[in-house]
């Protein structure tokens, strides 16, 4: 099987990249497009560190063959905000102590964003369900849950 050109919208920009049919989306994002915010913690869809949003849903990019992203809209943590215009989730993760080692943080934020994009009044259970596939070993999830809840409130106020 030969290399193919993948065309998709990545963080708002039309992106073309040559990939092997066996490449997984996580490796293309990390190794070919240098988006190291997409972390790789297991490669088997068990830790959630590689979570990105594809066509509105949070997915484990290590389980998605890269060519499945053809024509898709993909968002990574790098595309949601930065200095001067942080996403409310990034703000509340930073302000409420929801970050420790930081390895799970990008995937955690993306899972939470997929939730809040659809539902800005999530219950505690909905927040927990949304991030249940994202393993964090540092925080005990307490401050993460609070940060997601606080971001939802900020988003509601901003509307």
């Amino acid at each position: 099987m030969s290399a193919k050109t993948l065309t998709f919208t990545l963080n708002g920009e039309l992106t073309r990249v040559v990939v092997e049919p066996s490449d997984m989306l996580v490796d293309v994002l990390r190794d070919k497009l240098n988006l190291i915010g997409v972390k790789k913690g297991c490669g088997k869809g068990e830790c959630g560190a590689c979570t990105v949003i594809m066509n509105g849903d949070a997915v484990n990019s290590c389980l998605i063959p890269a060519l499945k992203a053809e024509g898709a809209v993909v968002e990574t943590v790098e595309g949601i905000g930065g200095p001067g215009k942080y996403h409310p989730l990034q703000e509340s993760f930073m302000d409420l102590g929801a970050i420790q080692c930081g390895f799970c943080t990008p995937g955690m934020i993306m899972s939470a964003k997929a939730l809040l994009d659809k539902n800005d009044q999530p219950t505690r259970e909905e927040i927990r369900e949304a991030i249940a596939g994202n393993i964090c070993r540092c925080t005990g999830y307490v401050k993460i849950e609070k940060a997601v809840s606080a971001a939802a409130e900020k988003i509601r106020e901003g509307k």
Partner: protein
Amino acid sequence: MKNYSVVGKSVRRLDAEEKATGKAVFSSDFTLPGMLYGKVLRSPYAHARIVSIDTTEAEKLPGVKAVITYKNTPRELFNTSATMTFTVPAQKPVLDQYIFDNVVRYVGDEVAAVAAISEKVAEEALQLIKVEYEELPAVFDPLEAMKPEAPDIHANCKEGKNIIGEIIKISMGDVEKGFKECDHVIEKTFKLPIVKQVQMETQAAVAQVEVNGKITVWSTTQTPHPTRMILGKIFGVPVSKIRVLNPPYVGGGFGVRIGLSAKAEPIAVALAMQAGKPVRVVYSREEDFMASDTRHGGYVTVKLGAKKDGTFHALDLKAVLNGGAYCSFSTETPGVLGAMGLAVYRVPNQSYYGHSVYTNVIPAGAMRGFGNPQAMFPIESVVDMMAEEVGLDPLELRLKNIMRAGDPWCLPYPCQSTGLAECIERGAKSIGWERRGSLNQPGAKKLRGIGVGVGTHVSNSWPFCVDYDNAIVTIQQDGSIHLASGVPDIGTGTSTVLPQLAAEVLGVRLEEVSLAFGDTQSTPFDIGSHASRTLYAAGTAVVAAAEDVRKQLLEYAGNFLKVSPERLDIKDSVIYITGQELVEDCAGTGLCNTGEGRRSVTLQELAYHAHLRNKQFIGVGRIVPENAPPWHAHFAEVEVDTETGQVKVIKVAAAHDVGKAINPAIVEGQIEGGVLMGVGYALSEEILHDAKGRPLHNSLHKYMLPTAEDVPEIDAIVVEAEDPSGPFGAKGVGETGLVPTAGAIANAVYNATGVRFYEIPLTQEKVFRALKAAKNSKNSTS
């Protein structure tokens, strides 16, 4: 209480922005031009001799640049843990492994490694390596391994069959006589599981070997400076030619990389030497599970004696731990288990005897709590049993017997502070201890219970291990401040709290301080981030360095302002004469002339004034830390489904005496994370092996750690019994959240069901069977 401007404030972490935007660089992200990818061939057998190994086909595969085995790598014995660099004489570190050997001793043991142009090619090449093994008898349980008929896993076990290093013995008073004087004696043996740190970033290293022989390694180590010493020994290279650093972030540690990151560093270096190109080695999650240190499982026996009124009079502990196939921290862990286990209660007659044993399973090493959780689940269970036997409330019995500041204990440093009584009082209030005993309606299928567990820990590893710190504070020519400390930030907030300490001492805003950390080239030697020591010990060096440079600044400023330095103070980067009001905020202006002679000078102006006169202010902190006990009391409320055996933790009230909390939000985060890890230890986490020694739990799906949906209500309560030995009175907090949790939960399960467990984790199956057995025996006797 003193008013501080930076210390004691929950400031936003200085690494938060990089981490929240995906910009933070970890070892597994790090790349270099021309970099190759390393992969490791691992043993499928628990114990075997390699009869032959043929790598010719692998070498021929296009894209393969190096293949290494025991035949072409250094034959230098080492220990993957930093113990090989910090064992205190006359004890000697156990050195029992090579990068590769011709004998493999556990499933996952390293056999060979390949460097290739991609991970895929490297993996393909591994399949082409032909290895012929001769299987040897294997043993997996430490008690079995001590029997005469068990296979010898290593030569030179001086203390007994397969016993690793030295047997640890601690004693105070006369324990034999003590037990004779007791009215109540309870003795029970407990079984502890092998569990895993499961830090989110797997073991990883990138190695570069320059033409002149200089080696640079970016890795996940918690201890760059000791790791450099280990690599120097393995490769016979002067440590001055080796640089080890974090890039700079590390995806968690929990003890798994105190020293080498399993064997990621030496394998990457050996491959890079062979290939002449940089090599990155990143463990897969499965490799991390099967070939990187675990927590020691094993057996702990507690014998506790008390007088009629409940006063503890004699305590004897014994531990036999499963050290696995190679020695990591297998002599220190039983040491801490005994020392911490004996230090919680005032018991005049006490003794401990403990050691680790070689077996053919994955090596056990350091994990958060370092032996202490293995001590406290058994001890706190027996203390609860004693409360029932003497007829006292478990809290009353504990309050009667806990250590007080100044009491004699078995540790080689004084107990100068304890907030344990306050921890117990505040935790009990949070959980509603008074509800205990009236939680359940008759006939209920789901039973509630409340239990408690208490304990202590260390704030560094001195005097058990070599433990010292250096720090350098340099005032730059523009008055900004550069701090250098050799400790990594493994997620615990080191790179925020060390600058907080320096900023407080120097009277500057936090933003003025930038930190170099986790790098042997830009920082002075430091023993590293472990043992709950980083803030307490490295922080003490930072405070010393900052005080040193502050003194120099005030002396120079005294000359400049023509007053005695004692009259000067610093606030917001302005050195001013105390007792006089500042008429304006001079910060940053470089001008503070008030018209009646200079009353103040900014650091910016002073530093540049000095620079033009050939002077820079450099503060040096060189310290050997004392040690101080953090204390904690956890209260757990559980609900046990008697029909399914499922235990649900409803709430944990976790009260911790941490001394001064330098950054309270970070302290809470440490406690909350530790509590949840402790819930996993109590209820679900365990690595079991099949009859051939193959691990049954080697992925995140199989290894049952708590997820966001398993989090109970956690009330992190911070008690601040400041210790005179710590920076601003701080003590350690990194490990303690895990220490008492399993004991508190097991005691709560007993309170709910009346069934006592002598083994964790309290899995649904285990609890179901025990409840059924209890019911049957009740029926048969009634």
